[in-house]
């Protein structure tokens, strides 16, 4: 691994253990000594067999889940709860069904303070919130749907609203849990490209869980392979493919090599799981 400058280090996970207590039966050892450093602007994809603790790890970074031992820090400060600097995009979209697209995107802005000209912390005005919402609605190509309710949107559109909603808060880190898992191949390809474009432009840090090795190699600068029972990091593969990447990158020979290697590793682990 290359020498890492401390200034680049954004999130540091050190030897984290997590057990779920189950009312009946033995507790589940979800994470067993996981250590992972995430640098600023990195695009980290996590793959691994079902139940290996990917969601648990994401929730811990999001501050939505506690852990038993180890440490999780961002900018050197321990993560003790959720915060708007870490935007989460859930697999089930988690849009508020009673709010229109616009209101969904505006909602999180209510909790954000910005600095005005005099350096005072102020809230966004209703007008500013609306403008921001419209900006991000345009970014995800949903202009014209500002006043639609989520029920009237397709799965892909809902996921785009969820992405816009996370982006509107301008988080440093995006935490995405299989965000495209439920979408058809074309919508998924489109959203992958959109995500790549915005990431290349806005240089956010992304932590992205997926089951799809293709997707992981296409997006990631670093693929984390986890193994199950107990959940551990098996291997970290740096993806040495230049950005900007497109769907055409999948034709690249290097891409294929990464993909085959990761796929083999994951599949071998899958075969080892006692069934």
């Amino acid at each position: 691994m290359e020498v890492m400058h401390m200034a680049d280090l954004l999130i540091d996970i050190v030897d984290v253990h997590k057990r779920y207590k189950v009312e009946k039966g033995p507790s589940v050892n979800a994470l067993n000594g996981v250590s992972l450093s995430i640098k600023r602007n990195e695009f980290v994809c996590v793959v691994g067999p079902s139940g290996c603790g990917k969601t648990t790890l994401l929730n811990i970074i999001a501050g939505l889940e506690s852990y038993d031992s180890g440490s999780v820090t961002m900018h050197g400060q321990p993560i003790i709860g959720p915060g708007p600097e870490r935007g989460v995009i859930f697999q089930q979209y988690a849009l508020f069904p009673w709010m229109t697209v616009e209101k969904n995107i505006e909602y999180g802005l209510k909790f954000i303070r910005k600095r005005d000209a005099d350096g005072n912390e102020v809230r966004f005005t209703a007008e500013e919130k609306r403008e921001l919402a419209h900006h991000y609605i345009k970014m995800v190509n949903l202009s014209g749907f500002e006043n639609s309710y989520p029920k009237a949107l397709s799965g892909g559109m809902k996921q785009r609203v969820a992405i816009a909603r996370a982006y509107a808060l301008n988080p440093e880190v995006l935490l995405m849990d299989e965000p495209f898992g439920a979408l058809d191949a074309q919508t998924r390809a489109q959203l992958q490209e959109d995500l790549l474009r915005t990431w290349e432009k806005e240089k956010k840090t992304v932590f992205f869980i997926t089951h799809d090795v293709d997707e992981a190699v296409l997006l990631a600068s670093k693929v984390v392979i986890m193994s199950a029972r107990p959940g551990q990091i098996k291997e970290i593969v740096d993806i040495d493919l230049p950005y900007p990447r497109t769907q055409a990158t999948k034709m690249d020979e290097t891409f294929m090599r990464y993909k085959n290697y990761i796929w083999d590793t994951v599949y071998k682990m899958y075969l080892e799981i006692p069934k």
Partner: protein
Amino acid sequence: MDATTPLSPKKRARKLKDFSDGSKRMRYTLMTISIIGGFLLWYFITLIPTINTFLASPKQVLRALVSESAADGRYLKDITISLQRVLIGFGLAFVCSIPIAFLMGWYPKVRNLVEPWIQFMRTIPPIALIPLVILAMGLGEPPKYTIIFVAAFLVMVVTIYQGVKEVDKTLIRAAYTFGASDKDLFVDIVIPASFPYILVGARLGMAASLTTLIAAELTGTTFGLGARIQGAQQFMDTSIVLLGIITIGVIGFVLDKILLFVEKKLTGWK
């Protein structure tokens, strides 16, 4: 089959079972037919003399309606007083059930303290409480409100509480990630997410109020639709009995339609 002959429209595609309500026109036509048909059936049955002794004909009921609503009749007063009892009992139950249901849904301690009593009370028909309520409150209006209140309250508190408990946990997590406090979460997420259940609870509570009305008026009152039905039974005046029953049905129907309208307005996002 000859591939070149176009299939007739009927053969082209299998029509799948339609689970929608159908077109508006079809709906209203069938509803009208059903209502007229029902009245005709009722009319023909009452032509049989033996049946007519205990079942008044539509014509007799209509005559009762006219005489009851005449200037010296008591119809309007019965309706007003019954409606007042239903609305006061229901209204109190509505106002009380919402905070209690939310407290139960939000605080496990409140839930554990209150739930056994609610589950226990739910199995008791409110009518069984009448003797106690009358002994405690006498024969005025309060005992009627109380009986209706109990019936509506139990139904509503259980329904709304279920709704609060079943608020989608991912929505709660999503709000937390934005930095929402517990108070924000309650006001912005839990309340609107439970709205559909509040309205379903209100409709069930309204139905319970009307069903209990008759029981509440069984004793100690001269006015009210329930009391009127009771009184008419002693004089074997089945036209008044039927008039009372139909009136209660119509009131229930109208009140339910109003709540349904409110529900559509407030939860159009669903």
